[in-house]
């Protein structure tokens, strides 16, 4: 008897013999998520954008807003200069980012050990929590979100969702990526005497460049 058989038969011996069909179990599971508003936080502002900004800033994310994708390189330059950093960064190899005009900035797709910043793109934002979502893929190396001290993320205002459940619904509609990551503020730790310190292993600074909707 394998461990798998031992475990499953121990479970079956302990549970009632009469068991619902898989469809009935699934229906029961879905019913547990009905009326989500009764048990989830309300948004802190009327609109998704305002709520997202309030929550993101409350957890230490800083925000810049631009009118279109073409303004992203300038916003990056502003951020790096503002922090006294060299104008050098790793840019995620996504066409939407690499196609921009990076004149005057030293960009590459890999992060050198001494390079302080990387730029990536979030698929969605979540107004409930100020989170951003990154999926791994051919043009989305996961390490670019974790290795730099300064993580800069481009997010379209129109991609801000209301609650965590809305993201779960989006995820369920497509093939699951290797990594689906919710990023909620810069890396931090409270492991020494409960006192909060930023930049534990991941980025100590999280910057969002919000791109206005063009429609």
């Amino acid at each position, binding site marked *: 008897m394998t461990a798998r058989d*031992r475990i499953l038969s121990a479970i079956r011996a302990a549970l009632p013999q009469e068991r619902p069909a898989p469809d009935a179990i699934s229906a029961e599971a879905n019913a547990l998520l009905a009326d989500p508003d009764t048990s*989830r936080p309300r948004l802190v502002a009327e609109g998704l954008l305002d709520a997202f900004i309030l929550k993101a800033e409350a957890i230490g994310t800083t925000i810049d807003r631009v009118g279109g994708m073409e303004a992203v390189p300038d916003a990056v330059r502003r951020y790096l200069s503002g922090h006294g950093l060299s104008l050098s960064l790793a840019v995620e190899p996504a066409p939407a980012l690499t196609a921009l005009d990076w004149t005057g900035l030293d960009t590459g797709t890999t992060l050198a050990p001494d390079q302080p910043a990387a730029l990536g793109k979030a698929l969605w934002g979540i107004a409930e929590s100020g989170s951003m979502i990154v999926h791994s893929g051919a043009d989305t190396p996961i390490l670019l979100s974790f290795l730099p001290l300064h993580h800069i993320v481009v997010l379209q205002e129109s991609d801000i969702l209301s609650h965590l459940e809305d993201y779960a619904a989006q995820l369920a509609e497509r093939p699951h990526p290797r990594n689906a990551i919710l990023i909620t503020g810069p890396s931090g*730790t409270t492991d*020494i*005497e409960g006192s909060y310190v930023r930049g534990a292993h991941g980025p100590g600074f999280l910057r969002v460049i919000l791109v206005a909707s063009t429609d």
Partner: protein
Amino acid sequence: MSAPEASVQVSFKNRAKTALADRTLKIAIDRTTGTAEAKRAVAVAAFPEFQAARARGRAIKDHVIAHLDHYLEQFERNATASGATVHWASDDAEARAIITRICLDAKAKLVTRSKSMLGEEIGLPHALADAGIERVETDLAEHIIQLAGEAPSHIVWPAMHRTREQVAELFKIAHHPPPSADDPATMVQSARRELRAKFLGADIGISGSNFLVADTGATCTVTNEGNAELTTTPPRIHIVTAGIEKIVPTTAHALSLLRLLVRSATGGELTQYTTFHCGPKRPGDADGPEEMHIVLVDNGRTRMLDNEFREMLRCIRCGACMNHCVVYRQIGGHAYGGTYPGPMGSVLTPVLNGLAGSRDLPNACTMNGRCAEVCPVEIPIPTLLRAWRIRSWREKLEPGSLRVGIGIWAVLARRPGLYGLASRVGVRALRLFGKGGWIARLPLAGGWTAHRDLPRPAGRTFMEQYRAQQAHKGSRP
């Protein structure tokens, strides 16, 4: 756990005594649990729907436990389809053997590990050491206790028993270059520098899992530091260890429970990094491990399905019960002697290590009910601890003197006349030991009087006084 059965029993009282005498420990415990309690209260107050969310969280966990076999098989199918290899382990030894074999087959020299209490439960750190594999703990607290050669003293803050000064001492010896100051920010930077090369040079990354998502086959890690993703992305192999009770039906169910977990654990709303790991690197992916192994561990969990401890399978390991426990806050986590300390640990340790060796743990509880009040999935922890006390009595595990004492009390308690007589004699006799209103020393009661005085009783029993008062009332016109 591989701890010998008797160790918890033999020395719980001694460990608790030592902990009580350690003033530095008390300072360290107060700093972290005090902050945790205050922050949780703020987070819950800011979420008026918390009670409804708790009821939903409880219902989700109960649903999963009632269909555990169905969900485990569904998870296995989907994880396998994503390219992961699913392993099953009945107990700690099987789990250790599976993981060690994967490491040895891969000729791994360096393994990074992202904090997992299950890994501690199955004795993974020792197993890797025995196999000659270098293990680097990447969670900051786990890094601290690895340097100190200690076990975790809390399930969320494993190094909470150490003050910043004590951490600085460890880092000065282990870090090259040593941190320049002993404030937390400088020490965190030092650990960041020290561990960076380890992350990138590891052959295998091992993580735990907060949720196993049945309908996608994904495993979920939550961290604030970002160490889980740095542990699981660069190495060639990612190994996940998870208890079978971690399963949830869908991502939406996991996220619903996450709201409860984070608020209850740290008082935050969401962890900084919540990651669903679904299989190894895909063709074309920019990074990620080439192999992913998921080890599903039973280790006593199926035994809890049909006994009085079933509700404990709802536990999502937030640590709120220990942060709010008057006993934990006096003695800290190491005194408990098991992998899991505090109230939830006092329920689980007898399951894992046997009741004979750990019967003192369910007794180290005042039954004040704080743990159940703050539990995000409404586990009636005091009721479960009482269930262990009942079992301990039925299995005759108490020392003879205690059984005789309780036996005498039981004889009296069932005979009101005799009980009244004994009370009348007792209160008068007790007064003989009292000086100035307090009893400082009493034969057979040193366990009480060694630490606190007993008020000298009134000269008459409650019933005597009550009757006298009733008679007095009745005599009035």
